[in-house]
């Protein structure tokens, strides 16, 4: 808020404040901060703060000449005990040391005195505490109003005397607005409370007083400028004041009206005109009227002046919602609890990386198919052992091979024989009739449970064919790259 009439309002923010003085005054605040910081343990607990303030107050009273001079810390201690009837719990020597350090007090040989800075700071601290106390002593609606009135006080105390107390006017308007909002919200409660009259009265009085003071403070502005170019702030202030007056007086009027109603004589005839008029009136939103509206009547019922009235509010159909299963509820709760909004921009969907298609000739396809078929066969029939033997030797007699790959048990031999036939089927080996190859055809001497039945079977020799295929088949369990390499 700009200075009202003349331009020389003293403000720490003003451009015309002499620099060195501004620094000096700010140093006061530095001292205050220093004391508060160093006496941290004194200012951390409400009760200790109180003792500290009491102590400061005692020193200050001496400085103001209200009390006898203080000789030293001990004198202070005993004065405290005398005055308050108990011993202070804070560390007195530390307090005095800190105060001395920041030049709030000085300690001579005989005398403990408070310096000017100390007086001002102590004053401020105690006033701050008292302000808070006064604030908290109000109930919630009146608090904002009280604060607004305090703003008016401060405005008078400072701004009018040429010292800026800050934007008092704005603060006052804001506090009043808060109080009016609160009042609107609480109006029905106030009406419902049979004993709320004193409270409503206080609020209405405060509002009235505030209105007068506000007018007083606003009128100089209006004199200077034309009415229609009023700063928005002032206009807003007027508006809020009007509303506040209306609602506080309206509440008071309705309450009194209701209370008075209880004193009247009981009448028997009812006038339809009056009813109709009242119905139409209760539709309107006017807040200052004496006549309560629908909700306000319900609030009055809450006062329960006629026993049972409070219960007898209205009759409505029971509202049933379709049943919700607890599973659904649990799901919903989980979803809500785990819900994390997407704060980052959504990433673009990545295209999957497709490998390039390989081209095969018909032969190659045949080869691959054959290998796949072979792998499938191997899945079902254990050919490893036979393959191993064939790997070592080019050709082996069938009987010998079966014995070596299997055993003398016929079940093993059967498996081995199956493997051989699989190899032959897979074109990995061939069975030939070898006439001369005695060393291959040599029948083993071991006693076996089995015997090859076909005639001349001992002359059959299994020979490895298709070397490269066999190698890959033998050496791998079907990894395709093996085949690709061998090509």
């Amino acid at each position, binding site marked *: 808020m700009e200075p009202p009439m003349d331009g020389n309002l003293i403000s720490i923010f003003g451009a015309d404040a002499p620099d060195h003085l501004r620094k000096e005054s700010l140093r006061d605040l530095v001292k205050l901060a220093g004391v508060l910081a160093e006496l941290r343990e004194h200012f951390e607990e409400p009760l200790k703060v109180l003792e500290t303030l009491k102590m400061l107050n005692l020193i200050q009273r001496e400085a103001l000449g209200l009390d006898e001079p203080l000789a030293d810390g001990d004198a202070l201690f005993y004065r405290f005990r005398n005055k308050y009837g108990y011993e202070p719990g804070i560390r007195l020597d530390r307090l005095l040391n800190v105060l001395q350090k920041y030049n709030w007090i000085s300690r001579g040989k005989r005398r403990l005195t408070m310096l000017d800075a100390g007086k001002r700071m102590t004053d401020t601290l105690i006033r701050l505490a008292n302000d808070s106390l006064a604030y908290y002593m109000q109930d919630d609606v009146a608090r904002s109003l009280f604060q607004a009135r305090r703003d008016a006080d401060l405005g008078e105390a400072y701004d009018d005397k040429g010292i800026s107390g800050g934007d008092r006017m704005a603060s006052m308007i804001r506090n009043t607005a808060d109080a009016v909002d609160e009042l609107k919200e609480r109006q*029905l409660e106030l009406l*419902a409370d049979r004993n709320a009259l004193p409270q409503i009265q206080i609020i209405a009085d405060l509002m009235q007083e505030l209105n007068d003071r506000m007018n007083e403070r606003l009128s100089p502005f209006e004199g200077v400028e034309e009415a229609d170019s009023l700063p928005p702030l002032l206009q807003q202030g007027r508006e809020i004041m009007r509303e506040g007056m209306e609602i506080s007086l309206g509440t008071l009027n309705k309450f009194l*009206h*209701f209370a008075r*109603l*209880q004193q*009247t*004589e*009981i*009448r*028997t*005839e*009812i*006038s*339809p005109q*009056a*009813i*109709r*008029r*009242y*119905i*139409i*009136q*209760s*539709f*309107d*939103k006017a807040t200052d009227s004496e*006549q*309560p*509206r*629908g*909700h*306000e*009547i*319900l*609030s*009055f*019922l*809450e006062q*329960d002046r*006629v026993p*049972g*009235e*409070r*219960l*007898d*509010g*209205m*009759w*409505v*159909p*029971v*509202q*049933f*919602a*379709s049943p919700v299963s607890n599973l659904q509820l649990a799901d919903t709760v989980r979803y809500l609890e785990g819900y994390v909004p997407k704060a980052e921009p959504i990433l673009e969907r990545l295209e999957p990386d497709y490998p390039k298609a390989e081209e095969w000739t018909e032969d190659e396809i045949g080869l691959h198919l054959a290998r796949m078929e072979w792998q499938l066969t191997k899945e079902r029939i254990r050919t490893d052992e036979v393959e191993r033997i064939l790997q070592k030797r080019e050709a082996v007699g069938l009987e010998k091979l079966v014995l070596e790959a299997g055993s003398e048990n016929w079940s093993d031999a059967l498996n081995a024989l199956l493997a051989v036939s699989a190899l032959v089927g897979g074109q990995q080996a061939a069975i030939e009739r070898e006439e001369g190859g005695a060393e291959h055809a040599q029948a083993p001497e071991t006693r076996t449970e089995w015997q090859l039945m076909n005639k001349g079977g001992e002359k059959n020799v299994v020979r490895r064919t298709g070397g490269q295929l066999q190698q890959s088949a033998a050496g791998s369990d079907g990894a395709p790259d093996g085949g690709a390499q061998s090509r």
Partner: protein
Amino acid sequence: MSSEELEGSYSNLPLAAMERLTAVLSPDEEYAFVQIMFSSSAAVRSDSFGLSRREVMKILKLSPDDGQGFVSFLKRVNQAVSRYYRLVYDERRDRAVVLIHVPARQARELLPSESLALLMFIFYHQEVLRNDFTLFTQLLEAFGHESLDVRRKILANLDTLIKLGAVSRYEHPSGEEAYALTAIGARLFSDSYLKRFTEFSHSQQLNMDDVLKFFKRYNLEAGEGM
């Protein structure tokens, strides 16, 4: 505080009162009560609230001319639960509905003040003056000079009342917008509310009996006015 406790115990009692129903009602009658209760709920049936007398009689397996049986059913239900629920049969509109008692504090949140005023007007117009319906133009005329943009305001509040089932649209032969009070709307205001309302309108205390007489609430059948 004792009044708080009192209120607390009230809110627990309805269930206990329901327990007593088996003592006075037959299974069929219980079933009918629950059916009426359900059909009275705005959330279940959005257009016509409650059951007609014929439907109730059917559930009760009463012969259509057994008026005595029907009245006895109403009476016994109300005797058992009437502090908290009320089974209302509205003869004019042929509707049986179950209403629940809402204490003043909760009732404040139920409807806006404007809706209450509107409903009171319709209530007065139809219950006291015995009109079958209220035209929208009549509402407009009554409230028109009181506030700005009143048409929209009235429509919005009527909508609220229709949702609650207190008012329904009335098929007027001339196609004019008209509204009829339902059985719910006719009983929505409690006796105490009507008394206080009338007292405020006259700035004078009144007798409950006179008020009820004025609003044609006296002599309600089936002990429902207790």
